């Protein structure tokens, strides 16, 4: 349609009609770039590590320009962050399905939960460790949070502990965050075994099981003789 022969109003209307389509195409293009970059980054981080991978390599591997990487992601760390979140989505979907059906003592429920976690992540140990290492990168803005602040996982653990309080095998006076952090420290140690000593998921799980057992021993409600009084929480 030639704009010369059209009245101005109609021409403007015609242009407006085209605009959403163009915007839609740009959007799809952006999404396509985004998934290609993330796919490429995931492979490279997993094989070469985070430090050993450059934006240029990611761009090349993804078949896009460095410029288009930067229109989609602010930094290499952001790419890693997004890749991790993406992966973890699948894990949490699985946990969400399984956890409501878990029965038994808190120690067993926690063990099952972490076993699922390890089995899921076992194939991408380097990626996971790269994520943790990058979280301590000095050049990152203060708003970047280290691993262990992962809200979904912490929420799942917190629910597990609450259920334990209801069931009566976890005392009610504990600071949930402290317990969560103990479990996260145990989890990270197990992960390091995997990454540095090539431990498999079975080994990681057994090391984690032992630690969960010790922690849960410490969470049992204190039984006291005598009349109930207001004991300070532990």
């Amino acid at each position, binding site marked *: 349609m030639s704009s010369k022969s059209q009245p101005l109003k109609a021409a403007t209307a015609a242009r407006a009609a085209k605009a959403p389509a163009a915007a839609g195409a740009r959007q799809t293009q952006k999404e396509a770039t985004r998934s290609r970059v993330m796919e490429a980054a995931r492979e490279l981080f997993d094989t070469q590590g985070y430090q050993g991978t450059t934006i240029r390599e990611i761009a090349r591997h993804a078949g896009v320009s460095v410029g288009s990487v930067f229109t989609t992601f602010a930094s290499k760390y952001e790419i890693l962050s997004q890749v991790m979140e993406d992966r973890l989505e699948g894990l949490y979907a699985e946990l969400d399905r399984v956890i409501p059906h878990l029965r038994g003592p808190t120690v067993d429920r926690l063990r099952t939960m972490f076993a699922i976690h390890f089995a899921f992540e076992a194939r991408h140990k380097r990626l996971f*460790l790269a994520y943790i290492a990058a979280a301590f990168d000095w050049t990152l803005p203060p708003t970047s949070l280290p691993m262990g602040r992962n809200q979904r996982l912490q929420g799942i653990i917190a629910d597990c502990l609450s259920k334990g309080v209801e069931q009566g095998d976890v005392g009610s006076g504990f600071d949930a965050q402290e317990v969560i952090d*103990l479990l996260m420290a145990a989890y990270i140690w197990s992960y390091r075994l995997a990454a540095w000593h090539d431990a498999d998921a079975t080994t990681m799980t057994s090391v984690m099981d032992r630690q969960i057992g010790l922690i849960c021993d410490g969470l049992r409600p204190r039984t006291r003789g005598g009349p109930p009084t207001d004991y300070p929480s532990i």
Partner: protein
Amino acid sequence: MKAPTRRALAKQQTRAKVLAAARRLFSEAGYEGATIRDIAAAAGMSTGAVFANFADKSDLFREIMLTDMAALGDAMSSAAARGADVEDALLKLFIAGYSFYRSQLPLARAAFSVGWSPEDGPALRSSPAAQALNDLVAAILKEGVKKGEIADADLDVRARMLFETYLSNYPQAIFEAWTLEALEARSRDQIRILLAGARRA
């Protein structure tokens, strides 16, 4: 004993200057951000002089870490010796650590970053100096067994978990500027939980 030669003294001074500059730059720029060039410049040396004394950046960093871990070990040891019982000794050990790094959290952060790297991490964590810190925790537990405060139950795992827990509090200290009081309260709870299964009575 022969007195050190002038050359040996000069070399010592060069090393000391480079280490001091490196410590400052690692604190300011982190491990990745600090370069040999910047460190040399800050020390008032050529990069050649730096490389005559240190193999590379990781060598420099390791040297600083080893020095610190040795000093930390001493501080933790004397603090723990003042503990009233096994849990108190461990608590004092934790606090000695946090106090030590309180004025140099950026360096602690750099250390963590290196500790996590697949290239340098394993060496740092399994170094004799790092092992010594872990052994110190184990020794405190053994002492607790001797005094009848705890049973000899899973002490190796508990020692390891205690040390990992000590380390795990650093991110909060670094990112949320926790006070020593807050760290102490948290550490006390964590130590209690980790020893609960072994506590006698």
